């Protein structure tokens, strides 16, 4: 059984047929074709699949695709505006906050959710906001610093 689902993805209207019981991660990747969303565990424990649903960070692997009808989804593919990178993307680059890059989409979305609601977070706020996202490469510190850089707008702090 397939169910038609309509939602907004990075500001565009999307219609897709979702297998009943399918999760949002699979529908985004395999039906809609947004490959920026990654799966690492398919069971809600790694955070790689984090997307924003109406601005809130959600695990797409645990979200029933049928439940997002009419809602607005943001993924890493929609972060930049044309050629212009989002401040988080620039800060991640400058801080070497990605190595293999597999966790990066989820990290960026979790960080965006934080900055959208709290433009000047403390380090503790950042750690808390990224607490559900696993990175096996960087040791987290460059990621935390990148989010703080993006928040303060100070890209030169590193000297």
């Amino acid at each position, binding site marked *: 059984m397939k169910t038609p689902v309509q939602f907004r993805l990075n500001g565009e209207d999307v219609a897709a047929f979702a297998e009943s019981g399918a999760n949002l991660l699979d529908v985004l990747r*395999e039906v809609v*074709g947004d*490959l*920026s*969303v*990654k799966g*690492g*565990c*398919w*069971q809600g*424990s*790694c955070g*790689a699949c984090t997307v924003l649903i109406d601005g809130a960070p959600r695990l797409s692997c645990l979200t029933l695709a049928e439940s997002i009808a009419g809602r607005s989804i943001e*993924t*890493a*593919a929609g*972060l*930049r505006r044309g050629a212009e*990178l989002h401040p*988080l*993307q620039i800060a*991640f*680059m400058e801080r*070497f906050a*990605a*190595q*293999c*890059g*597999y*966790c*990066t*989409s989820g990290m*960026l979305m979790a960080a965006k959710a934080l900055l959208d609601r709290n433009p000047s977070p403390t380090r503790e706020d950042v750690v808390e906001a990224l607490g559900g996202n*696993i*990175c*096996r*490469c960087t040791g987290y510190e460059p990621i935390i610093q990148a989010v703080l850089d993006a928040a303060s707008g100070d890209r030169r702090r590193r000297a």
Partner: protein
Amino acid sequence: MFELRKDIFADERDDNLKEIGQPTQRQDMLGHVTGTSTYYDDHRIAGLLHLKVLRSPHAHARIRSIDDAAAARAPGVKRIIRAADVPVNLNTLLSLIQFGKDDEPSLANDIVRYKGEPILGIVATSERAAIEALGLVRVSYDQLPAVFDVEEALKPGAPSVNATYPKNTFEYHGKYDHQKLRYGDVEAGFAQADVVLEERYQMSPIEHAPVETNGSIAVPDTNGRFVVYTSTQALFFSLDTAAKINAVPSNQLHFIGGTVGGGFGGKVDTMTEPLVILAARLTGAPVRYRFSRHEEMQFGAPRGAERIYVKDGVMRDGRIVARKVRAYFDSGAYTRLSSYAVVKCVAHIPGPYTIPNAHADVYCVFTNRTPATAMRGFGVTALDFALECQMDKLAVAIGMDPIEFRILNAYRDGDMKAHRREAKNCALIECAQVAAEKANWPLREQFRRMSSRIGGGADRTAAGVDRSRAPTPAAPARTAAAAPQRVAYERPAPPAPTPPPARGAPPPPPSPPAGSTHGAPRFSSVFGTRRR
């Protein structure tokens, strides 16, 4: 930040460094932050089928029967793959470099040797259909006694794990059950030592846990070729392994790798490609085989468990005069890469220290655990953990500062290593000095003045050379002027002042142990031959 200490490395490099010392952006970084880097699974392929494997619930069992009739009829199932379908169903990874015997089936034939060993594959139209069909397969087992501890596995009467190596030890050079290192006379060293310390160290298996799990996709191409997208860290290695197991020429396989979602050594084992290619060949359709997180954590090869016994003899003046290591690498049920890890381990003994008497026996042992593989310095990492813990304990035992203790014993240029190679380009002393400086760790003047370039060589001893004992023919001539650097150490509060003994007996001439052609003099590679 990079800092070139010209006071130490005056003639090491040019000064006009263009890249070193400057941050350089990764070429894949823009892709990473925009979500456009292409991992193996980032290919949308029409008509993709999905392979899942049935895994053994037992650590050691004989398979009595397999009933897959209901699974074959389940919705979405396209094909069942059995052991008999695998063209070459016995392989060892390093057979590509003629190291070791084929010992591991792709799908278990008759006996399963670790919990999670693949038994049978199901190809279906969705992952879910494949998983549901797996639940319909009925396997009956006779459980066999299992062994999970390396030393237990070597005891007489222990269950035999691996049919190719029935004694539970890997076989080196066709006949040896372990790797040896012999240098000087370790028992004489212990007899001479003021303090002897023996400790046991154990490292657990460690899962790499990459955020991207192992996986691959095989797509039938024209002319009988297959395009394979894979998460592998070892592209050509995996290609040749997959070609061997599928009995196809390697030019029929076109492997595409590239961005790996974290590996750390856990993606060198060619765990998915041979079967996914076989599935594509048997169905004529593109197939994906992707580990679930559970499979990755439970059955993906981990860093091996290592048990290491270190016995050291040390003098109160700080010199280590003997080091004896006995170590066991837990290879799990099959070889993978632990055989090679043992070679690396022995090559690293006795650590970066000049010790005149060194002795090691290191075993690669089979147990009924998940086969172990590479991980970040494997073979050396656990040994260093053991040796450096031991160094701290030794320093405490003789009341010496642990960094000064390391500086005193560190290799210097011209020292003869236990493998009968001369130490060159040593820098441990300088590293230790800089680390101490950065940590505001006070070192006494004489240790701050020590240098890797001064005082090395076989004739350097604490109180001059006892030339009545066999000199080393290979030892380069040294001036006595270099010696005081090494001898200056005295304890802050000297105990009963025994005359400082010679800095160990000079090493014996570089000849192999009697009756053995293996190992010692040309030690280096897995072939037992010298490289470079």
